[in-house]
């Protein structure tokens, strides 16, 4: 399938960043038909920080402003909810409070310095951002990256998926007042962060990936430790998951909350678990060659429950993937001291990575080995728009289940 990941407009020239069969490529815009092919074209072109502006009027209708300082949503962001007291009539999200101007700051930086900025967009997606950015630069400079590096990137992308999915499901359980489930999931979340540190030295997998290579690899002892750790996480999570889906109170809160159809999800440019929960198979797992193919998990309902179920099954698959690959990883020999040398210093390129919440895409232009332009397209940007859309016509009690089930973050959307 063809997904529009981003619209790039530099010096009056427009290009589309398309993902087709798992491969990212740039298409110059030559006709209106190209724009009309994608429902999310305007959204991705405007890149607004005030998502779903608009208002509703009527008897007793008022604007309820939720944020940017509220304990309910920890990140600095703001919801504009139009309501007459119970039902949400229109929801808009303002992510501008978290805007840090990262794209602009990347200009005139060396590729390695800009990589650290890519990791700072949203630290819990740091590795996905780092991989998508590195792939874009490698693509622009025509660098061939060692297969061992690619395999390690895939392993750590799955490690990132596990702790993020655990975090999302913990929040959903907490919102449904499932105290026992929340505590157990929260302990698994902390365990997953500790395994990240064992594998890479960073709880958020930062500072290990580089353009064309990898800074260092874990010792065999640490790899064994990680294998045991992920086996335990998979086993404990499966028990909890089976137990939780038999709990009617919990299921009732998630079922039929924030339902979107497959057509709506595609039109809004969703990818990742939010799209797969509508029964659509995306090609993000085929972004690069895997030694053992990851199954694509889908559900059909398109509600908060389906999104949770997709994430839950992905946790168990990702644990299995990491264990299988770590067992054979000592055969991947490459020099971690030297990144692959690029064969040129000028060029443009794009890269994507399969982040826990969908496709992260980067577009870079390099001149004389320095970043001239960078554009970042995040899953949280389209995800925030979809979350706001899904909140319409639901009641305030559904709010945390709908918003949290999309796994989106203000820092990721605001850049």
């Amino acid at each position, binding site marked *: 399938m063809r997904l529009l990941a981003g619209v790039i407009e530099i010096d009056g020239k427009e290009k589309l960043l398309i993902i087709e069969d798992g491969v990212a490529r740039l298409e110059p815009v030559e006709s209106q038909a190209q724009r009309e092919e994608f429902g999310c074209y305007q959204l991705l072109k405007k890149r607004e920080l005030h998502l779903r502006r608009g208002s509703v009027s009527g008897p007793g209708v008022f604007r309820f402003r939720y944020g*940017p*300082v509220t*304990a*309910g949503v*920890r*990140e*600095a962001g703001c919801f504009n909810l139009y309501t007459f007291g119970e039902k949400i009539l229109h929801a808009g999200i303002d992510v*501008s*409070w*978290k*805007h*840090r*101007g*990262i794209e602009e*700051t990347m200009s005139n*930086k060396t590729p390695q*310095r800009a990589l*650290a*900025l890519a990791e*700072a*967009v*949203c*630290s*819990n997606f*740091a590795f996905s951002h780092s991989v998508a950015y590195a792939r874009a630069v490698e693509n622009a400079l025509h660098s061939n990256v060692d297969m061992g590096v690619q395999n390690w990137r895939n392993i750590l992308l799955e490690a990132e998926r596990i702790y993020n999915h655990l*975090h999302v499901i*913990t929040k959903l359980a907490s919102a449904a007042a*499932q105290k*026992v*489930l929340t*505590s*157990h999931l*929260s*302990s698994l*979340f*902390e365990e997953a*962060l500790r395994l990240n540190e064992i594998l890479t030295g960073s*709880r*958020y997998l930062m500072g290990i990936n580089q353009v064309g290579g990898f800074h260092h690899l874990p010792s065999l002892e640490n790899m064994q430790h990680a294998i045991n750790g992920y086996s335990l996480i998979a086993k404990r999570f499966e028990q*909890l998951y089976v*137990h939780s889906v*038999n*709990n009617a109170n919990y299921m009732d809160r998630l079922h039929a909350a924030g339902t979107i159809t497959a057509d709506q999800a595609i039109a809004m440019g969703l990818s990742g678990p939010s799209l797969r929960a509508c029964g659509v198979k995306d090609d993000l797992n085929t972004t690069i060659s895997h030694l053992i193919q990851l199954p694509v998990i889908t559900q059909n309902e398109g509600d908060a429950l389906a999104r949770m179920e997709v994430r839950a099954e992905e946790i168990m698959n990702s644990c299995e993937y990491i264990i299988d690959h770590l067992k054979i990883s000592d055969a991947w020999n490459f020099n971690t001291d030297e990144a692959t040398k690029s064969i040129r210093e000028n060029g443009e390129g794009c890269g994507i990575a399969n982040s826990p919440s969908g496709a992260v895409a980067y577009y870079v232009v390099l001149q004389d080995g320095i970043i001239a332009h960078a554009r970042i397209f995040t899953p949280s940007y389209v995800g925030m728009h979809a979350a706001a859309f899904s909140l319409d016509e639901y009641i305030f009690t559904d709010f945390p289940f709908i918003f949290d089930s999309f796994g989106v*973050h203000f*820092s*990721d959307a605001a850049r």
Partner: protein
Amino acid sequence: MLKWWPLFGIRRHLTEKKAYTSPIRLQSLYGKLFQRSLFIYILDVGSSNALNFEISALESPQYNIHRFGIYFTDSPRHADVLLILGRPTELMLAPMNETLNQMPEPYYVITIDDSMDDLPMSPYPEMRHHVAQLKGIPSPSELLGLLLELIKNKRIAS
């Protein structure tokens, strides 16, 4: 037959018995005032989200912060400590100052700056009782060590 939820995993001991320490030594302004409990209000003003995740990790059963009398509160008016995450974006300066105005005396302010120096973030304004300025992403155990140092909690060693 599934177990009743309250019995699920009841024999699993998740809380760790460790001495949590912080390299930062604090001079407690209020002596023993917050020794029995500490209520913290979290305010994100521009962090890259790792700090929010570390706060979530700090709430995990491994750390079990409630045994030390440490709680997160939903309003700055109920808080003893304002924990500011990240360096402020320009837009967040005003909400941050307003939150500071809502803090009841006596209180502490702790800031954690995880922003890269390249980014155009605002510097922290002058704040009263600003007892600690951390840089980078502290782990939950370091953060817990800092909070325990602040309240000089005598139950740490036991």
